[in-house]
Every structure is written in C-alpha cells, then in structure tokens.
C-alpha cells in the first residue's frame, strides 16, 4: 500500500501541472522571440530569394533561392568598398576594446581596491556621465577632435570611445568582490602596485573583461553617429556608414541588395553573441550580485 502511494506521488512529481500563469509566461516569451527574431529572419528571407518575390502579392516567408543570395553577396563584396569597411570597423572595434579594457581595468583597480582622496566624488562624477545623452556631448567631442587635427583619422575615431564609464562600473563591481586578503598576500609577497594589478587582479578579472570586450564590440560595430561625423572621407568609411549609403534615399539600390548589405553588417555581432552569450550573461550577473 505504502509502495503504491509512493509510486503515485513520484509519477505526479514527474508531470508538473501547467498553470494559467505558465501559459501566460510562455505566450509572452514566444511573442518577444517573434518580435526579435522576425526582422532577422525577414532579412535572410529577402536576401536568399529571387528579387521581388518576398514583396510580391503572394510573399513567401522562407528563402527559395540560395544561389540568388550568394550572387548578391559576391556582387556587394566585389563592386563596393565593403571589405575595406569591414577592415575599418574591425580595427575600430579592436582598438576600442583594447583601450577600454586597459584604461577601464587600471582605473577600476584603483577605484575598487584602494583608498585615495576624492575617490567617492570622482567615481560619482564618472557614473553621472552615464546619465548624459550622447547627443549632448557629441559636438564638444567633435570640436575637440577637430582641434587635435584628428578628423578622418583612426585615432579620431577611436580615442573618444576609450573612456567607458559603463566599463569602469562593470569592472569596479567585479573587482570589489576580490578578497582583500589576496591583495595583501601579494603585497607581502613583494609584488609592487603594478605587479599586483598585472599578476593577481587582471587574471582574476578575466570573465568580466571578456564580457566587457564583447559588449564593447557590439557597441562599436553598430556605432553610426560618431564615424559619420568624424570620417568624411568615403575611403575610410566603416561598415555602418557603408550600410547607410545603401539605405540612402537616392542610392538606386533595390530592397534585396540593401538587405544583403544589412545582413553582411549584422553577421559579425550575431556570431559574437551566439558564441559568447553565456559569458555575457554570466559577466553581467556577476557584476550585479556584488556591490
């Protein structure tokens, strides 16, 4: 009798009851997924189909001609400066990542692990800059860059993005979680200030650094306004600017070619996110739980 009862209970446990609340949550999750994924799917659909088909009277929701898509990709890479734009965007993103990681980690090291006069107001000021919209700072930044003679240069493109308040915040929160005793042990082991940073703190901050690197990549790759302002020379255009040209009102490009350019621009961040999504979520969760 007892055995039979236990068996019934375990069977019940295996099949949890689905409540109305569960259904609502699923419906919401599916709706959000559709809203997010559909534009990307539509882009792929338009590219890998004979021109005109998706927007015809009887549109299809799935790709019908891979060959047509490949032709468009090959045409764009062959006949426009897309590959050079890729190079520019990649250089812009990688240099920004290197700078943000280096400056951010060094500043976070001091803010998170040491005391110095004016630390709190200084950190508050930096955090306050997170509240200021880009539109407000873009003209002064441009004027400064122009004064330095950095218009149409890589340093002009990269330098203003190196000081990342968000990056500093992320790394400070992460480093605050490092045990103070470990820093003291390193001091007793004879490590100098920079050696503590280099040999102890930096390796232990790797996860947060990877997260910041990925987020910085996403942000830099998709940045349109700053490259548009600082790079007027078409030979130095980044991917986002080239895509902008395709989308321009008088570009005389058909929708499917514009979509192909968009798809090519979206591939690197999509790949990055798919590969590193676990690290991104972990990194953000970690920085949030300690503070």
């Amino acid at each position, binding site marked *: 009798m007892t055995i039979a009862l236990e068996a019934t209970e375990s069977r019940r446990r295996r099949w949890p009851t689905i409540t109305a609340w569960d259904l609502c949550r699923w419906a919401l999750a599916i709706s959000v997924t559709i809203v997010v994924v559909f534009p990307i799917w539509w882009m792929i659909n338009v590219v890998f189909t004979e021109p005109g088909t998706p927007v015809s009277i009887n549109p299809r929701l799935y790709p019908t001609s891979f060959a047509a898509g490949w032709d468009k990709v090959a045409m764009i890479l062959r006949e426009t400066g897309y590959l050079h734009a890729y190079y520019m965007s990649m250089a812009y993103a990688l240099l920004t990542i290197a700078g943000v990681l280096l400056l951010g980690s060094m500043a976070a090291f001091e803010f998170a692990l040491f005391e110095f006069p004016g630390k709190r107001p200084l950190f508050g000021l930096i955090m306050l800059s997170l509240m200021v919209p880009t539109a407000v700072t873009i003209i002064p930044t441009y004027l400064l860059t122009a004064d330095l003679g950095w218009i149409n240069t890589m340093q002009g493109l990269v330098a203003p993005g190196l000081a990342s308040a968000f990056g500093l915040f992320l790394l400070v929160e992460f480093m605050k979680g490092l045990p103070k005793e470990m820093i*003291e042990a*390193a*001091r*007793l*082991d*004879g490590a100098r200030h920079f050696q503590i940073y280099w*040999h102890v703190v930096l390796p*232990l901050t790797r996860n947060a650094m990877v997260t910041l690197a990925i987020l910085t990549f996403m942000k830099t790759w998709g940045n349109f306004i700053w490259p548009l302002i600082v790079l007027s020379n078409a030979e130095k255009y980044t991917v986002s600017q080239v895509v902008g040209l395709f989308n321009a009102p008088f570009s005389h490009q058909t929708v499917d070619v514009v979509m192909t350019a968009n798809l090519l621009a979206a591939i690197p961040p999509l790949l990055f996110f798919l590969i590193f999504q676990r690290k991104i979520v972990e990194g953000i969760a970690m920085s949030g739980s300690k503070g």
Partner: protein
Amino acid sequence: MAQLDITGVAKTFGAVDVLRDINLNIRSGEFVVFVGPSGCGKSTLLRIISGLEEVTAGELRLDGERLNDVDPARRGTAMVFQSYALYPHMTAAENMGFSLKMAGARKSEIREKVGKAAAILQLERHMDRRPGQLSGGQKQRVAIGRAIVREPKVFLFDEPLSNLDAELRVQMRAELIDLHRRLKTTMIYVTHDQVEAMTLADRMVVLNGGVIQQCGRPLDLYDDPDNRFVAGFIGSPKMNFLSATVREVRPDAIVLDDIGGSSASLVVPFRGFDPSGRTVEIGIRPEHVRLAPSNERLDGDVEVEVTLVEELGDVTYVHASMPTGERVIARSDDARHRAETPSRIRLDPSRFLLFDAAGRRIRQSGAA
C-alpha cells in the same frame, strides 16, 4: 636570531582605540599565541607586525632594526591568512614561488626552494593543482608553504585553522607544532580559540579591549591568572564566578559567607587579606567543584538546582544554578545519567581565586 621587540604600540581607527600601549618582547624561536575575543585587537597587532597596518604610536624592532617604516615585503616576516588567500589562477607551485618570482629569483632557485617546502609539508603530489582542486587542509599547507619559501625570520599566522573542520584542525595543530620544532623559527599565531592557544603556545598573550591582560606560559595563565578576564577566558568549560561576603579575616585565612547567596560558610586559606574589602568574587574551576554524595553532608556544601547535565563520555559536566541565580559548573568523572534535580555541590576552598569588584586578582601577601 629573530628577537621582536614591541614598545608602546598603539593603534587608533578614527576615534576608536584598537590597541593601547602594547609592550612585548618575543624571543628568538618562540611560539607566541595572541588570544582574545573578537575585536580585542589581536589581528590588528599581527597586521602591524606584518606591515599591513601602520602604528599610531610606538615602535617595532626585529633584531634591533626598526621596522616601522620598512616595506611589508622586506620585514623578514611571512603571513598565513585565515582564508588562505591563495591565488586561484595559479598552481600550488606557482603560489608558493610567487614571492621569489617577484624578487626576480632564477627559475632553478624557485624550483628548488618550492620543492623543499613541498617536501616539508608533504605536498609534492599536489604541486600542479590549482587551489580550487585542493581540500581545505591542502590549501592550508600550500599557504604555509608559501610562507616557508620566503624563509622569514618570523612566521605570522592569522587564525589559520578556523576554516577547517574539527578533526583536521587537531591534525594541523600537531603539524604546526612539528613544523615549529623542525624550523625553529619564531612564530606568532593569532586565535580566538583558547584550546588552540593552550596546545600550541610557548607563551600566550591574552588581549582584551586592545590591552594586554596577561602574558605567560599557558599553564601559568590557567593556574594563576592576573584578573577575572584571563581567569574566565582560559579554560573550557570556563571558570565559575561566585559572589561572597568576607565575614572574618584571620592572619592566615578568611571566612567567606553568603557564597552565591547560599547559607554555606567556608574557611579559605589566605594570608594577608586587606580587611577593608568586604565583598569578593570567588573564581573556581569546574574540576574543583564536585557533586556531594547524597548520603554525606558537610558544613560547606551548597544547595543548588541542577539545570543541565552534559555527558561527554570520559567526563560529565553538571550545570547548576545558585540561589543568587549565578551559574556554576561542576565536573564529575563518574556521574552518568544524573537527573536534573536539586543537589549539593562541594567547593574546594584551597583552589579559590579571589577577585575584587574591579575584576583584579586579590593575591596573598608574602606568597611565592
């Protein structure tokens, strides 16, 4: 030689006095244990010796050399932290060799010294593992190994066994004693666990409220404490304290009444008692309090209410309540399954320690 002299050391954090006028001479090769309750300043004193904290006043000298302004890494001290503070991204060998690497030592030298320390601590098989792959005891050994590799004049241990389970703690305690015998280096050890202090120390320094209460060999502190705090802190279970009134002062004894509010009157051997003091506090250890046999009644027996019986196998502790509400613990070697009933205890007056109202020990005049 590694004689450490601490003179007039004080430390304040803001308005809080953490340490006050600390004077201590630690001899070469000595195993000294700082012991005291949480917040007594023992860890701060250790951190001052290591150089992680600066003194507000006073002076530290190691072998005559003034340490106050010497960099922590150059003081000739090595510290083992409570949390081990191992670098999680390095292997055990890299952890142990880190200080040598920072000092710019050759790889062969690092390998040799780390190997030697690993042999002392029987860690050879674990040298390629990272801290996350080691057990608590192994981590602790690596932390000690990291200190050994630096060949310090003074080892500093900050509650190093607190994170270990009871069995491992006993084992590591024995290993530390053995290590001290082999290395013959000065060791300073901080703990709040008085059993650990008693078993490890050549000399114990009891701190409370940032002040050294007493300093001496463990059994001297146990048998002959200077004040009520030391008497109560050393020993487990702790010493019993009972209020009493002095009824009569004789040349070589005093008669105490009203012990713990009872009607018992006891003659306590005591020479040279100052007759101006009328009330005292008696301190008596549980092993000197016995349960009186039910069929035998003496004048000095005290009626008590038994509140708790702790049977530990080899020994039984009987907790009882005096008429004033003061608690008393009696040790019994043979009582088993003793019911929690009214009972009588018998105090041994020759073992009484007397304290005045301020908690200071009242000593006999002319006593050795």
